[in-house]
């Protein structure tokens, strides 16, 4: 029993209280509020590192468990725990939250108090999602994350923000309702909502597992988003303020992939195995479709948004390879996507702040005007392209390695791999196109000559991204080590069950 995880989840609430106390109205205390939010998120990051230090990668089950009865009559518990499936997500959340807050520093100047309150509440929700081990609690956190994001997009977003925020809210909520039904069904049949208990007692709902799988899968697929459930994403990503996009890409989408790994796979192993080919096909369509659709976009941010569909397709393919390489690659690629796409959104935000446009045709030759910014952007673009030596490659390679030998994908898994690997070519096509149009060519728009190069705050944020982009690229073993035993346990569990089932 440890309250460490509870502290981690709810610490940002203290920040919210501090912000409310510090506010003297009329925007006088805006800077103070920014600092409170930043310090709060930094302390949360430190707490997450303490969690990492207390975490034992050799143990495959839940650790640092905090578990008390909540509504005993319905078998609902307040139950937090961490394992190899979630540790990286927790660290990513803490990291991205700091980045998002720092990235908003000069971009947000209206309703600062409300903004940072929502940012911190967002962090609470996200942490809760990754740590909750009781389905009911999970569902509360899951839905809770919608609210701050709804306001972040709806109030501080672009011109189409209202449409985008409502669409985001309803689309994801509609998906989760089916999940709620599935949760209630399992909870009622088993008399508990605790995930480990449900996994142990999954025989009780084994007959309904295919329909239950779909109930969860649709909620998660919308979040990821898996093709064709992606229609909300270009709106939300493009309209959200920079920090909102960073959080969306960095963490919120990973809630979907995490959901598959945490719930669908262990709760419904046979259904996971049976549906794997179908999901893998959707994932591959997503990889190729997302990449092709990214290419002709005129708005840089929209291009990056669509590229997420492609990248998340890789993650899904890895997860539904249902072997250790695939799942570990999938989880790590989730982190990688958070880093590189988060950084891409950040760099778009930095230019947008100065030029108030994101149309590619407005740019060109930026390397001449702002060389340092351009070099940093290039590295981020290369990371997103999966250049070996940077993080994206390690993830994609491991995923495709997994898919190549995936028993879940039938007798010719290499066909899936071959199609997915073509995404590597397409990524170069749209990312280099974007890079050339923005940074290369002659500097012929006079408005761009006045651009300033990165300032110190932006440089620090960039470097924070780059440290991990390079670290994961050249020495990812530590990251794999964190999840190795949990993932093997999950995979063994699935294959044992599926064997028996056959």
């Amino acid at each position: 029993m440890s309250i460490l995880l509870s502290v981690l989840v709810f610490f940002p609430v203290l920040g919210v209280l501090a912000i409310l106390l510090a506010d003297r109205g009329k925007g006088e205390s805006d800077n103070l509020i920014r600092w409170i939010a930043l310090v709060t998120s930094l302390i949360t990051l430190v707490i997450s590192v303490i969690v990492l230090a207390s975490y034992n990668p050799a143990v495959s089950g839940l650790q640092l468990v905090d578990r008390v009865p909540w509504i005993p009559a319905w078998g609902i518990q307040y139950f937090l725990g961490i394992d190899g499936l979630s540790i990286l997500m927790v660290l990513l959340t803490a990291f991205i939250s700091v980045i998002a807050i720092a990235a908003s520093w000069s971009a947000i100047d209206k309703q600062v108090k409300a903004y940072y309150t929502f940012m911190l509440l967002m962090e609470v929700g996200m942490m809760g999602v990754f740590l909750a081990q009781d389905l009911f609690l999970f569902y509360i956190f899951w839905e809770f994350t919608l609210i701050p994001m709804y306001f972040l997009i709806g109030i501080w977003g672009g011109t189409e923000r209202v449409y985008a925020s409502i669409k985001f809210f309803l689309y994801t909520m509609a998906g989760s309702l089916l999940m709620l039904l599935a949760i209630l069904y399992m909870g009622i049949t088993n008399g508990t909502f605790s995930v480990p208990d449900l996994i142990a007692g999954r025989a009780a709902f084994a007959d309904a597992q295919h329909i239950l799988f779909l109930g969860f899968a649709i909620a998660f697929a919308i979040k990821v988003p898996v093709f064709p459930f992606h229609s909300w994403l270009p709106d939300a990503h493009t309209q959200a303020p920079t920090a909102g996009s960073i959080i969306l890409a960095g963490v919120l989408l990973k809630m979907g992939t995490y959901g598959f790994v945490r719930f669908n796979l262990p709760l419904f192993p046979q259904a996971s195995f049976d549906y794997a080919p179908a999901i893998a096909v959707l994932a591959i369509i997503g990889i190729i479709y997302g990449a092709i659709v990214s290419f002709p976009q005129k708005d840089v941010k929209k291009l990056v948004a669509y590229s997420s569909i492609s990248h998340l397709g890789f993650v899904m393919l890895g997860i539904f390879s249902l072997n250790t390489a695939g799942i570990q690659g999938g989880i790590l690629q989730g982190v990688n996507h958070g880093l590189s796409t988060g950084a891409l959104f950040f760099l778009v935000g930095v230019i947008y702040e100065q030029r108030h446009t994101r149309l590619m045709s407005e740019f060109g030759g930026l390397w001449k005007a702002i060389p340092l910014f351009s070099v940093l952007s290039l590295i981020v673009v290369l990371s997103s392209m999966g250049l070996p030596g940077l993080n994206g490659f390690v993830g994609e390679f491991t995923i495709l390695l997994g898919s190549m030998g995936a028993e879940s994908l039938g007798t010719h898994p290499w066909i899936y791999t071959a199609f997915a690997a073509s995404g590597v070519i397409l990524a170069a096509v749209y990312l280099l196109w974007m890079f050339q149009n923005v940074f290369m060519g002659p500097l012929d728009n006079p408005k761009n000559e006045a651009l300033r190069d990165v300032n110190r705050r932006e440089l620090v944020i960039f470097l924070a991204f780059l440290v991990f982009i390079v670290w994961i690229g050249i020495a990812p073993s530590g990251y794999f080590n964190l999840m190795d035993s949990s993932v093997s346990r999950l995979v063994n569990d699935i294959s044992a069950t599926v064997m028996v089932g056959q």
Partner: protein
Amino acid sequence: MNAYGLAPLLLLFPAVGVLFNGLFGRRFVEADAKVGERWSGWFASLMAISSFVVAVLLFFTLQTNEFHPVVVPIMDWISIPAADFYVPWAIRVDTLSVTMMLVVTGVGSLIHIYAIGYMHGDPNFSRFFTYFSLFIFFMLILVSGSTYLVLFVGWEGVGLCSFLLISFWFDRKNAAGKAMNADAGRKAFIVNRVGDFGMVLAMFLMAWTFRSLEFDTVFETAVEMFKTNHIVQFGLFSAPISVVITAITALFLLGATGKSAQIPLYVWLPDAMAGPTPVSALIHAATMVTSGIYLIVRSNVLFEIARESGPVIFGVISTPDLVALIGASTGLLAGLIAFTQFDIKKVLAYSTVSQLGFMIAAAGMGAYVAAMFHLVAHAFFKALLFLGSGSVIHGMEHGHHHLLHDHSHAEDHEAVFDPQDMRTMGGLRHRMPVTFWTYLIGALALSGIPPLAGFWSKDEILAHANEHAQVVYVVLALAAVCTAFYMGRQLHLTFFGAPRHAAAEHAQESSRLMTVPLIALAALAAVGGLLNLPFLTTRMAEANHHHPAGVFVGLESWLEHSIAAFELTEAGTIHLPHTPIVLSPVVAGISTLLALVALGGAFYIYRNKPETAADPDPLQRIKPLWWFRILPLETFYMKFVVPPFKWLADWLAFAVDWNFWHDFVHNNIIRDMFVSFATFLADVFDKFGVDGTVNGIGSLTKGLAGAIRRTQTGFARTYALGVFLGAVALLVYFLWVLY
């Protein structure tokens, strides 16, 4: 002597070079252009030279340690215990990798020094050398990695550097207003990625088949599996080992056609000439483009197994034969295209494609040593020719510059002057003697005139083809004739005859920084044949492959330690098809004669044509020949691949994804129908008196929505309510049915 432990320094030096120039170079150059350039350029050169010294030490280490290959580990890279997958960062020191290291750092150092002169005055001088060091870094990773995955890091890394250096002058536009340098760089990267697609798939196959990507393990396991006719099984997939290895090698071939510019992916290399000339010399002639040959030679065991497996590809051909065929046809096709080029560098570019075809063909025939020999010799003379062409371009620019300042010539000066157009040159041998004489040596070496390097190396390939593959021999012999002809044409257009433009009249010899590397490379191109004289190898063969340790006799016996013979059947040994080549006087005589005839023919045809820069080329009258200027694959891709892709992307992005899926399906169908449905429900509920609840939820939403409310009155509320009610209804229904 034992310097194996120094191997990591090989990579460290260029890495330091990257950091130095990347972090401080710009500041140095901006503070004081002259001193700054010297620091920036010489520091990078020094780092390349240091790596060369390390490579030399490794060379002697191998000599004194009986050519014993050693893997020097650096650190873990990817290790996933649960998936039994492990790839370290490690350097492999063996005769093959050290050969490549010596070429890369040796020729690389000379080109570095040349570039100090060539890039003088460029505002991004230090950026250039940052990229150059980065290139050396990745190229050394490519040739020294001990696993396919590390090789691939270098493979993609040099692709990146190629992209950066081709588009180094990224703000330049051509007459049509396109950013051609940036376009060319991007094209190179994307085309190479097509090849990389093959590389990654090959690695996945290897990882599952051999459970390793480490060279030794892969080769040993492959041989064992082939002997026992193993059925490869991963996941639910199974196939005989011969099929799997054929697939792996075929995918390697795809990778090699990308990197080494072969049919069908050679189209990026001619465009790559948009980059600064030292880049063309280092990356697009001497080193990077030979990676494909290195890959095949490195994987010789797999290719030999594929050869042994027979015609597995569609039942008609085996991978090595396909390799040889592709190499030979590329050799000839590119040789023909080279006839029709006016740009001095484009001729060399197609020539490089053609010579790479020779090497690929040699590797495909199993003449691995011959391929490597030609690779090394080609690195000498093609780097020399590119640097020479750079010197010519510089001289022409100088002459043109001179004109601009000389008002008496102002009237005959056209708006756009292309210093690379050979039609504007002529007679430069008088103006640029050092460049001329060194260029001459390079051109003759390339044409295969004895006793220069190219003669020996090309002849070894031809002799081998003559013995083992007559078709390949004929095609390559024709390609060799083309080589001599287009080099004769180029020599004449550039250096002989009378100047056809005032710029050529005023051209100036380049600085010593540029001419000294030319002289060094010319010396290497002249005597490079000594590396593998057939007399020596014959003697080796007679002495039953015995050679005294510690003495470098020739590439044949040196590379034997990396390209060893091995047993493929339980019954006995199958040697590599390549036996040491005995000098064949007939083959050598024929090719020398043909080369001389072609050279002479070119000089005869161009003896006084074209007379002015505007005159047509004498060959232009031979229409079928001139078609090669437009016919080849480039046109095909630009017509039938790129536009359909763009159309498809536009259609998917705007028509399908946006108009149909986003607007029509989501907004018109789902939303509007839902709103009607929800409104209907709300009306019904109103009648039953739950008005209060509805309003309660409504005002809650109102309060939360705040700023949003004004623009979308009631919409979200109705929508949310509808969803909520629908869910409750479903829930009730489910619980009703289940219990």
